[in-house]
């Protein structure tokens, strides 16, 4: 965050007289200054841009090498792939909204509760770890909890509730995946929302109270309008985060769930007919488009947030 203030700081620095001779020198060499960025751009071009753009390129060509957009269209029209994108969207949406709301409440709670001082730092440290814990390790936690022989499963069984009997839970279920994804979604939301909620100045609340507004009015007229862009931005980030997730779903279901990310894995591993390689590229291309839009939206919303939270 704080990028605005950083820029102000450096512009203040630029104004100092000691600066002048160096920038004059820099101006003389300006046409060569980009040379220093060659390693970065070379690296990024070979290892990031080339593979990424190749996804779009290869998806737009058929086996004979002719340009065609029909593969992109095929993903959008075939019921199978539409279903997998729909499942991914649904899973991402529900885990983003639930995780976002709970994350917001939790952040507000740890900022407001002040009595045990360690609570806030404990939650923050835990969040930093858990937000990064997608993947294999996460599956273990939930298999041990709500798997067939999981602790909660056996505990409930002892009280006459059969988690697995009535198909209430099975490992391919998107409800289960949602519950599991919350384990990294809520912490990510906490990390994203903390600066915003910290930025809610207590003085605003005092002022609102002095002007005679109730707590409800404060939230409706001040608190929520200020937090809204940050909250929406957080939700969008969570959506992208979940949409891009692969490892957790793959390890948990052994590749049995029909999510967009899992479908790509199939094509890459050659579990399908060789002809349809383009399909894998096209799914990947669509995924990049979705996540790209979501992250750009997040960046835009975040820039709106920082206006109030200097």
């Amino acid at each position, binding site marked *: 965050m704080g990028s605005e203030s950083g820029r102000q700081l450096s512009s203040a620095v630029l104004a100092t007289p000691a600066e002048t001779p160096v920038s004059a020198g820099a101006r003389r060499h300006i046409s060569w200054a980009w040379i220093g960025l060659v390693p970065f751009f070379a690296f990024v071009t070979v290892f990031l841009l080339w*593979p990424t753009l190749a996804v779009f390129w290869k998806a737009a060509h058929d086996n004979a090498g002719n340009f065609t957009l029909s593969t992109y269209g095929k993903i959008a029209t075939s019921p199978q792939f539409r279903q997998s994108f729909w499942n991914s969207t649904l899973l991402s949406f529900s885990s983003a909204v639930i995780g976002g709301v709970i994350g917001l409440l939790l952040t507000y709670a740890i900022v407001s509760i002040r009595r045990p001082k360690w609570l806030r730092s404990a939650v923050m440290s835990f969040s930093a770890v858990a937000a990064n814990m997608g993947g294999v390790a996460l599956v273990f936690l939930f298999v041990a909890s709500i798997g067939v022989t999981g602790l909660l499963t056996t505990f409930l069984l002892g009280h006459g509730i059969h988690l697995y009997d009535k198909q209430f839970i099975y490992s391919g279920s998107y409800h289960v995946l949602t519950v599991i994804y919350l384990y990294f979604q809520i912490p990510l939301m906490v990390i994203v929302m903390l600066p915003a909620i910290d930025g809610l100045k207590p003085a605003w609340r005092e002022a609102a109270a002095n002007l005679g507004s109730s707590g409800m009015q404060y939230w409706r007229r001040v608190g929520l309008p200020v937090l809204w862009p940050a909250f929406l931005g957080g939700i969008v980030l969570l959506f992208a985060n979940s949409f891009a997730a692969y490892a957790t779903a793959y390890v948990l279901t052994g590749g049995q769930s029909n999510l967009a990310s899992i479908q790509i894995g199939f094509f890459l591993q050659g579990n399908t007919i060789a002809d349809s390689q383009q399909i894998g590229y096209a799914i990947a291309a669509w995924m990049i488009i979705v996540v790209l839009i979501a992250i750009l939206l997040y960046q835009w919303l975040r820039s709106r947030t920082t206006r109030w939270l200097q």
Partner: protein
Amino acid sequence: MAPQSHDQVAAVTSVNSIATGATADSMARQHPQPKSNLGRKRPQFGLWSVVVVCALYFLFPLWAIAKFTLDLPLEGWTFKAYTKAVQEPELHTTLWLSLRITGGTVALSLALMIWTVLWTTLKVKRMQPVVEFISILPYMVPPIAFVVGIAGVFRPAFPSFIANPYSLIFFYTVLAMPFTYRSLDAGLRAIDVKTLTEASRGLGAGWMTTIMRVVVPNLRSALLGATFLTVAVVLGEYTIASLLLINTFPIFLATYNSKEIFAGPALGLMSMLAVAVLFALLGLFTRKRGGANATAAIA
């Protein structure tokens, strides 16, 4: 948004904040009283119930996996699952491979990004938005889509490169780039690198000396943040390694889990604890030097 009501409230409060002379951040932390003056008891209960419910959700699985791996059927409480996992020979080879890849990734990404961020800040300031955008671009490409591109490009062009486990170093450097960039950028913004380097250059130091003896020591917490996040990313990365068929530690963890019902999760818990220790160390180091670089880099 309701801009009008904002401006009014903000105008009233700006008097307050000017009077105290505090920034929003420090005010929120150092003046706890005002917020809780209004309706103290009732909201506190609600807030605590949120914390307790979340604590249950987050801590129960940890307790479950601990009990599951420590309290074995017919054996009772024992460390057997853990000792068995630790002695697994394949663990040593895969973990060692992952650690070497991690070391390579940290070295490459720090060398590349320190140079680039410094150069951008000092020499070509107007390129900064471009460098920033490209640096966070990997965050916008899902690893599963990225690996499709990698396989599509490098498998036909450089088959032996892609079969080599160390090729992962380059792709993991890409994955770590958003974190490394954010962390270094935040660190550089905080130290006024321009004046520092000018002072150092003015005293007759060369560029290498300036970087190694002036810039790097001042960026210690940012570098630590970048390093630790890179380590966490690499040690947990499953998608790319799995689809390139490279047997790193996370891949072994997943297959071992399907073979060993108790030792598998035991190993998983140990790896989680290792990452937690890593982040605890990071928090310890960065707090001393006053910077929330680690979490800032994620968000």
